[in-house]
């Protein structure tokens, strides 16, 4: 086996040094009746060449969005990942290091985390951000728990236009605790109204911008309402590229921003691993979940970085921790930081403008098709169409023509007749004019 260095002779010599005669003696503590005699009922080891072949064969059974026009979004977006980002995260020193608990030999990871935290705080318009969460949905749930701790209240109001996975994860996370999430129904035809729900017992209101259907809103007035009632406003962002073009949640008065950072630097990878973002105000920092990196100095007075405020965390606080979270999305947050550094101020704004102009271009082509109605008054790079036919069967027909033509809303919000004809369409910088034209032609044929 290529990964294990011992020869048979070395094993014998090592056993002798330990003072035992057989490997079985090392496993004598296992109850005899439970010990496995033979091998597990699984194939034997394979060469690297064979393993690679196995996976090439599996990959060939999938339709690659890279090779085909793709207009899928709904919380995960196809963007170009610069080769520098993928190269750097494969460097041994980043790829194969552990959590930076020994700061003297982990300054690379720590400085990158400090830069990540700064970038996340900057784009969300917040004061501080943590070193990342598992993904956007878990970050949203953690934000709600945090709001409950900050306000010492127990109830969250969750927008009907929040991504359904985020709603489900939040409900699941809270279900066995003393907290409660009230999930409002989706609202398509007007502005969602929270006034009737906000009271002195509410810990927070959770909204998404752009929302699940792609619409952009100014939540400044809602933030004021929340604050008057002593509640916090949580704004979820799952297409972070939008922040290069639209008002930041911080500018609207958000108290916590929970986001999905996949769009910057992280490949789609069929849904994970991604990178959850969590940003807030400085005054709430001790109620924040997850790892935090802070600046300090070493013994010689040189600037350096350490994980800090770790008394909030499970390895010290145990059952009183702010969360049971024990990892961050380390390498994905590094990819985010590298991609964001490459973009910079100029590139981030330009990428956002490019996405919007692509989306407007496609929208103008689609909304004039008979049997297609645009439901969005505003959008960034994703919008919702009402089709004259069932959206999921249209999507199947498009896939048969080699076009990944959007996500049927019914896949995420089933059993709602209002939703069955709705199609979510996302457009990024990766779509060419010819991709758009193929989509338009295929959609006309499918309707």
């Amino acid at each position, binding site marked *: 086996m290529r990964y294990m260095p011992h020869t048979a002779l070395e094993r014998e010599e090592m056993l002798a040094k330990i003072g035992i005669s057989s490997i079985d003696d090392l496993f004598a503590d296992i109850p005899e009746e439970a010990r496995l005699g033979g*091998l597990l009922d699984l194939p034997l080891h394979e060469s690297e060449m064979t393993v690679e072949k196995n996976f090439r064969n599996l990959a060939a059974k999938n339709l690659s969005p890279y090779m085909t026009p793709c207009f899928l979004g709904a919380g995960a977006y196809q963007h170009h990942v610069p080769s520098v980002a993928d190269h750097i995260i494969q460097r041994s020193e980043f790829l194969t290091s552990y959590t930076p608990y020994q700061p003297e030999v982990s300054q690379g990871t720590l400085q990158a985390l400090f830069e990540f935290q700064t970038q996340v705080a900057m784009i969300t318009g917040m004061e501080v951000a943590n070193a990342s969460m598992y993904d956007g949905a878990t970050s949203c749930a953690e934000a709600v728990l945090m709001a409950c701790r900050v306000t010492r209240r127990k109830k969250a109001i969750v927008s009907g236009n929040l991504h359904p996975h985020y709603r489900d994860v939040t409900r699941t996370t809270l279900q066995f605790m003393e907290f409660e999430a009230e999930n409002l129904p989706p609202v398509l035809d007007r502005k969602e109204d929270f006034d009737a729900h906000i009271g002195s017992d509410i810990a927070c209101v959770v909204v998404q911008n752009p929302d699940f259907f792609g619409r952009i809103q100014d939540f400044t007035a809602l933030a004021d309402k929340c604050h008057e009632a002593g509640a916090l406003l949580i704004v979820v962002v799952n297409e972070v590229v939008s922040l290069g073009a639209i008002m930041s949640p911080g500018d609207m008065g958000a108290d916590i921003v929970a986001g999905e950072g996949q769009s910057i630097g992280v490949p789609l990878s069929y*849904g994970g691993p991604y990178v959850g973002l969590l940003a807030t105000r400085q005054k709430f920092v001790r109620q924040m979940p997850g790892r935090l990196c802070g600046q300090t100095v070493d013994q010689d007075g040189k600037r350096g970085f350490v994980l800090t405020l770790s008394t909030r*965390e499970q390895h010290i606080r145990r059952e009183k921790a702010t969360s049971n979270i024990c990892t961050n999305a380390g390498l994905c947050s590094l990819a985010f930081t590298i991609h964001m550094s490459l973009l910079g101020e100029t590139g981030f704004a330009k990428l956002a403008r490019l996405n919007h102009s692509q989306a407007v271009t496609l929208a103008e082509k689609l909304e004039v098709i008979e049997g297609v109605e645009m439901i969005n008054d505003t959008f960034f790079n994703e919008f919702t169409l009402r089709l004259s036919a069932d959206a999921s069967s249209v999507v199947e027909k498009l896939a048969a023509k080699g076009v990944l033509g959007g996500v049927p809303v019914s896949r995420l919000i089933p059993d709602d007749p209002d939703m069955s004809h709705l199609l979510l369409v996302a457009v990024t910088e990766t779509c060419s004019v010819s991709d758009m034209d193929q989509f338009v032609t295929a959609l006309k044929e499918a309707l």
Partner: protein
Amino acid sequence: MLNNKGRPTQPVTAADADAAMETFTGNKGLNLESPLIFEQGVPGRIGVDMAEPKPVKSRLGGLDRKEPVGMPDLSEPQVLRHFVRLSRQNYAIDAGFYPLGSCTMKHNPRINEKVARLVGLGDLHPMQPTSTVQGALEIIDSLAHWLKTITGMPAVAMSPAAGAHGELCGVMAIRAAHEAKGESRTRILVPESAHGTNPATAALCGYKVEAVPARQDGRMDMDAFAAKLGPDVAGVMLTNPNTCGLFETDVKKIADLVHETGGYFYCDGANLNAILGRVRPGDLGVDAMHINLHKTFSTPHGGGGPGSGPVVLSEALAPFAPVPFVTHGKDGFDMVEQIEGPAAQSFGRMKGFHGQMGMFIRALAYMQSHGADGLRQIAEDAVLNANYVRVGLQDKLHSPFAGICMHEALFDDSTLKGTGVTTLDLAKAMIDEGYHPMTMYFPLVVHGAMLIEPTESESRQTLDQFIGAMGHLLDKAKAGEVDAFLGAPNFAPRRRLDETGAARNPVLRWTVPEGTDGGEVTLSAAS
């Protein structure tokens, strides 16, 4: 009230910097510094070329961003150099021995990275129609089969994103199972030596956590355990092999006792590496166990994540598994994403989409590379290596628990008593010898604990050198050469950092220095 011993986190000795060793740039040969990325930009540079946006009629509804974000502009070579320089300030398993107990820092094969990036795998969108991702679903199904076979369990929930997330999944399934029976149980029993995530997880599920003490031999105290059991106990969370590196010899009795009172047995699978192919948790009475793919199955730790923590479940808990999961439909693989039909009793959803697919691919490639024969060899060599280190150091360090250990060797700090050198000082001196320190001060049940997990990846020569180096350091400590420890590390990119200052006055982000516009290059940043 003292639930955890304090230890020095502020450098104790004054800086004794040798002026002759300082350089003009702050760099020292191959040790290259890089200022923060925010201190390196010049407005107008760009590191990504892209098409000019076509002028269109804006549909943003007038909600355009008004203020700049404040980020620096850099070119590609600058960004590349910055992160290459940062990378070189990290220790890594590829570069050296990383004996972190409980973390399983094993070799991360590169074929796993390669296949995870294949066109048709790395670029798949999670919301593609299932008809276009049959290969992806086959990978999830196949990995599930390997995990179930390895553990001897009938079901597995694939979506948890990390070990602690898997624990949450397992304990939620336990709570859901009790509630389905109309029972409201309130307590979870957790041994004192447990990972901190165990009590934190139980608390998130609304349970009161009760600690069970350890016996003299490092295993859970069975009398104390039996005394705490009762009809209000939802279950027990036990790490096996435990965090002292020992197999819980009474594991079957623990399972029987908790089952007799109607509770469930959660096993923390962090240490599965030690028993691969030698015993199946399913044969020990386990009801739920998470598997850290980033430990046992070598997906890279990546400086702290991402992980992946699928949870194997018994027949009793399987109906409560979270969505989504893969099923075998009439036209191939299918996916259940909603709480209905086969998932009618599911307790909910743990994360967005379908789990850590990128980690699934790597773990499956690792398993295929090993096969049934290699998996068993992993456990054997990992345990062999740990015992080799244990015996190699037995004249120098004291083991709190006698006899054979599993995949990690545990020592206490009694040898250091009176030397003026602490476990922490010893660890920092190891850095100067070119090693990553072992796990320290964990488990909490052992004073000044040092937990050493070599893993199966290390050669005998590496272990011999490590044993020699540790012996050398311990001899020095006992000879009273304290200064060599208190000042350590001397040869790392930084010396000891002021963690106290960092926590008292948290600086968690860069801000524009006062009196500048933030867009200028600053050269003083390296120091």
